[in-house]
C-alpha cells in the first residue's frame, strides 16, 4: 500500500490500479457500443411513442435497449445447430395473460414475443401430432412424416430459444407457452385431425405464416441482429413448407417471391 502525499492515500498498489484501470477501460469500450445502440433505440422509442397510432403500431422495430441488441447479435452464435433442445414447450402449455391492462411486451419487443409464440405454437403442434400418431389416431403414419415432424419441431425449438434470448436480454420474461388468441382454434383443429393429411395441412399453414411473418419483420426492423435473425429463419420455415407441399401432393415452390399476406399480426398476442 502506498502512502500518498497531500493527505490522499491510495489504498491499493500501482499494479492493482493498472489492472483495474485496464479492466475499466475494456468494460468502457464494451459498453460504449451498447450504450450507443440503447440511446439510438431509446430515441426512436420516444419518437414512436409520440407518433403512435392505434392499429399496427406494434409492428415496429424489434429491439429495445442494449440488452436486446446484445442478445440479438449473439443469436447466430448460440443457436446454430439443427437439433438442440426445446425450451420447455409442451403441446398444450400456455402462458397466462398478464392480467393487467398493459402488455408485458411493448413496442418492438411485442414482435419478438409474437415470433417466440409462433415458434412455440409450431413446437406444440408437432408435439401433439407425434403424440397422436403414437396413439394411432392418425392411421398409418409414413416414416418420412414422423421424421419431418421430429426435425422441424427441433428447429422451431431452436428458433424459439433464439427469440427468447432477445426477450430475456431485454429484461423481459421468456415465453414458454403459446400466448396467442388463435391457439385454442389450433388445438381444436389438431384434436379433430384424423389423418396425416389433416395435420400436414395445418402444419403447412403454420409454416407459411411463420415464414411470411419473418419476411415482414426483416424489412421492418433496423437492428442488425434482428434483421439477420429474421432473414436466416424465414428460408428454413419456407423449406418446411416446401416439403409439406410435396407430401400433400402440391407443387412445392408455388410462389416466385415469398408473399406476406399470411404474416401474423402482433394483435394475436395475449400477453
Amino acid at each position, binding site marked *: 500500500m502506498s502512502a500518498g502525499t497531500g493527505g490522499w492515500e491510495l489504498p491499493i498498489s500501482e499494479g492493482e490500479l493498472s489492472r483495474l484501470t485496464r479492466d475499466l477501460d475494456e468494460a468502457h469500450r464494451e459498453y460504449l457500443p451498447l450504450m450507443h445502440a440503447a440511446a439510438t433505440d431509446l*430515441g426512436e422509442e420516444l419518437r414512436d411513442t409520440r407518433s403512435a397510432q392505434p392499429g399496427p403500431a406494434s409492428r415496429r422495430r424489434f429491439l429495445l435497449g442494449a440488452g436486446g441488441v446484445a442478445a440479438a447479435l449473439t443469436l447466430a452464435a448460440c443457436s446454430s445447430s439443427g437439433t438442440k433442445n426445446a425450451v420447455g414447450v409442451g403441446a398444450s402449455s400456455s402462458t397466462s395473460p398478464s392480467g393487467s391492462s398493459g402488455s408485458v411486451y411493448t413496442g418492438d419487443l411485442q414482435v419478438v414475443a409474437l415470433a417466440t409464440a409462433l415458434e412455440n405454437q409450431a413446437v406444440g403442434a408437432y408435439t401433439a401430432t407425434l403424440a397422436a400418431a403414437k396413439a394411432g389416431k392418425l392411421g398409418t403414419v409414413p*416414416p418420412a412424416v414422423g421424421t419431418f415432424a421430429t426435425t422441424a419441431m427441433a428447429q422451431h425449438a431452436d*428458433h424459439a430459444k433464439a427469440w427468447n434470448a432477445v426477450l430475456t436480454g431485454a429484461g423481459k420474461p421468456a415465453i414458454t407457452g403459446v400466448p396467442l388468441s388463435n391457439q385454442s382454434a389450433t388445438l381444436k383443429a389438431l384434436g379433430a385431425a384424423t389423418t396425416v393429411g389433416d395435420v400436414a395441412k395445418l402444419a403447412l399453414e403454420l409454416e407459411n405464416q411463420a415464414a411470411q411473418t419473418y419476411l415482414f419483420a426483416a424489412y421492418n426492423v433496423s437492428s442488425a441482429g434482428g434483421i439477420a435473425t429474421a432473414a*436466416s429463419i424465414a428460408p428454413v420455415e419456407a423449406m418446411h413448407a416446401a416439403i409439406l407441399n410435396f407430401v400433400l401432393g402440391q407443387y412445392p415452390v408455388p410462389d416466385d417471391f415469398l408473399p406476406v399476406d399470411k404474416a401474423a399480426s402482433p394483435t394475436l398476442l395475449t400477453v
Partner: protein
Amino acid sequence: MGEEHLDTRLLAELTEQSQDLNSDALRITRDALTDFGQQEPARRWWQRGGTVAALAGGAALWGATRATAASSDDIQALQTAASLENLAVSVYTTAAGLPFIKDGNKTVSAFIAKTTTQHQAHAQAFNAAATQAGGKAQMDPDPKYAAIVKQMLPSIKTPADVVNLALTLEDTAAQTYTAYVSKVTDVQLRKLFGSVAPVEAQHRSILLAVQALLAGNMADLIAIPTDPAKLPAAAGSVGFPDAFYPTKNASPISEGAVQ
C-alpha cells in the same frame, strides 16, 4: 514495485477530471435524447401514404412509386444477384435440353421448367431495381460460378449430376440473398432479397429430397403427387439441414457487379 513512482496527487486530479467528463457526457446524452423525443417525429413506413398495401405486395417489389435510396453497394449487390440468376437460368435451360432430362422423369423436367421461369423473374426484379437505382442491368452470369459450371458441364451425365450442380447454385443464391438482407441500405431491397431467398431455399429443399431419392434408387417417388407411405424416413428431414440458414458461402456484393 513501482509504488514509489505513483503520483497520487496527479491521479486524484485525473480521477476528478474523469468524473467530470463522465457527468458531462451523461448530461449531454440525456439532454439530446430529451430534445430528440420532443422533435416532430419522422414519418414511419406505415405512415407514408398507401405504403402499407404497397409493402405488402408480392412480386411487385420494386414499383415505380418507390423512392430511390439505394447506395452504390446496393446496386452492386443487385447486379451480383442478377448474375447468379442469369447463371441459374442458363444452367437450367441447358439441363432441360439434355436427353436424360428431356426424356426422363416428368416431374424433374417440370420442376426445371418452373424453376427456370422463377429465376427469370428474380433476374428481372434485380435488374429492374438496379436500373431504377441508377445502375446498369447485369445480363451476364456470375463469373466465379460460371467458371465452375464450365468446368463441371462435361462431367454431367445423369440427372443426379444435374441435381448436384443445381444444388450448388441454389444454395449459393439463398445464402447470398439471406446475407444481402442485412447488407443493403434500402428497405425495399431488404424486402426484395428477403422474398427471394426463401424461394431459392425451397428449390434447394426439393433438390435435396430428389437427390436422396435418386441415390436410393427411388426415382419413381419423384412425382407430384408422390406416395408418402413409400418415402424413406430420411426424406422427411433431408430437405432442411440447418435450423438457421447459413451465409458463410454468400457471394461478395462485388462478385457479379457490372464492371
